[in-house]
């Protein structure tokens, strides 16, 4: 755990820096894959950038809406650089929505575009694991294994390391698959990433110490992941079938 990197007088917030690195590496592999799939690279890059900006703006505006009276007194605080005054889920949703609208107006084909995004998303997931390692978030359940780490007042599973390793394997597989594209139906690469990411979460959530619990003892993230995994497989079935019904 190393949330703050001290470089002389500069205190750098390491998790944020790692996420930024993830965005950077992610966008570069997205461009590579886009070229391979013969998509307009500039339009796609713009879509990613606009989506990120919209996500950030949305996260701040939703947070402000929650505490409207406080922000009415001091509207300039909307521009604050403090990452704790953001609403992450709402932000992600607004970013996705804006990216979707932009992509549609630019005439980007939906499934092929998603395929181009897949390696970037997989790369970002690795960076996200490193960010969690730096901040101590997404921490493990208490355990007494030889490789357990001391964190947050207990010896715990190094869940962030598991996360990094598995995300690394997924990134390598998606990149390898991406080299072999195009596939018999568009959307395969993206759906494969969704399925692998969901399977990884389904497996690793078992070692987490911060799970939200529903129905007594079940981990919410596992139920959601299984649903997403099955959904991705169903989508593959449907994509394959729609291709089959078309004359080749």
């Amino acid at each position, binding site marked *: 755990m190393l*949330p*703050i990197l001290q470089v002389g007088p500069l*205190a750098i*917030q390491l998790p944020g820096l790692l996420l930024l690195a993830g965005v950077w590496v992610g966008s570069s592999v997205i461009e590579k894959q886009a070229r391979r799939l013969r998509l307009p690279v500039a339009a796609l890059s713009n879509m990613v950038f606009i989506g990120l900006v919209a996500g950030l703006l949305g996260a701040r505006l939703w*947070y402000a809406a*929650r*505490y409207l009276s*406080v*922000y009415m*007194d*001091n509207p300039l*605080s909307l521009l*604050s650089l*403090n990452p*704790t*005054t953001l609403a992450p889920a709402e932000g992600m949703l607004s970013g996705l929505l804006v990216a979707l609208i932009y992509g549609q107006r630019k005439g980007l084909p939906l499934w092929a575009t998603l395929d181009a995004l897949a390696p970037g998303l997989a790369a970002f997931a690795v960076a996200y694991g490193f960010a969690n390692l730096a901040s*101590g978030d997404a921490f493990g*359940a*208490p355990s007494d294994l030889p490789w357990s780490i001391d964190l*947050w*007042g*207990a010896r715990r599973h190094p869940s962030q390391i598991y996360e990094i390793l598995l995300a690394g394997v997924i990134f390598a597989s998606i990149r390898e698959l991406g080299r*072999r594209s*195009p*596939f*018999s*139906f568009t959307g*395969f690469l993206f759906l494969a990433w969704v399925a692998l990411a969901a399977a990884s979460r*389904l*497996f690793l*959530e*078992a070692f987490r*110490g*911060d*799970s939200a*619990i529903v129905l007594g*003892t*079940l*981990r919410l993230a*596992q*139920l959601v*992941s*299984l649903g997403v*995994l*099955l959904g991705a*497989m*169903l989508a*593959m*079935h*449907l994509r*394959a*079938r729609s*291709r*089959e019904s078309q004359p080749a």
Partner: protein
Amino acid sequence: MAVWTADWIARPSRWIPLMGITLALGAAWIWMSAAPAAATTGGQIPSPREGFLAPDFTLELLGGGQVTLSDLRGKAVVINLWASWCPPCRAEMPAIQRVYESSSGRGLEVLAVNTTYQDSERAALEFTQELGLTFPVPLDRSGTVSRSYQLRALPSTFFVDRDGIIRKVIIGGPMSEVTIQTAVEEILEGGG
């Protein structure tokens, strides 16, 4: 490419049995890893992190008397660690004072813990007088509280709800008044 177009991903009928297997295996794993009560923290373990119990301490106050964090259950508490020589600490103190004045009537307490082991009591006193601070200033003379809160940067601020659970941690500063006020709303609402 030819390999993949001919490959079995393209055959819709392949996916249905695979989904069945996935569902069975997934459900089994979820069942096996169902959380025992101890798997989540539930605010039982003291650690300086969101969702955990705020590590307890008893410190002497600047100007006499002492304070124990656990005696303040039922109140929302802002714990701010600072030093007189730290410019962002100085910059955010007036905002903390204003939030304290406006919200102490609703059950807010502020403990501005001076990191005395790397500061001096005299400097701390001059600082509080100069800025007209009215909330209690505990003195961390030995550094034990800074250690138990894993102090890495000044200022660091912990927002503790009425049950003694940390709801938000802000490392570094200065925090704007809005940032402080919104976090304070969270801890005033949360907890019993």
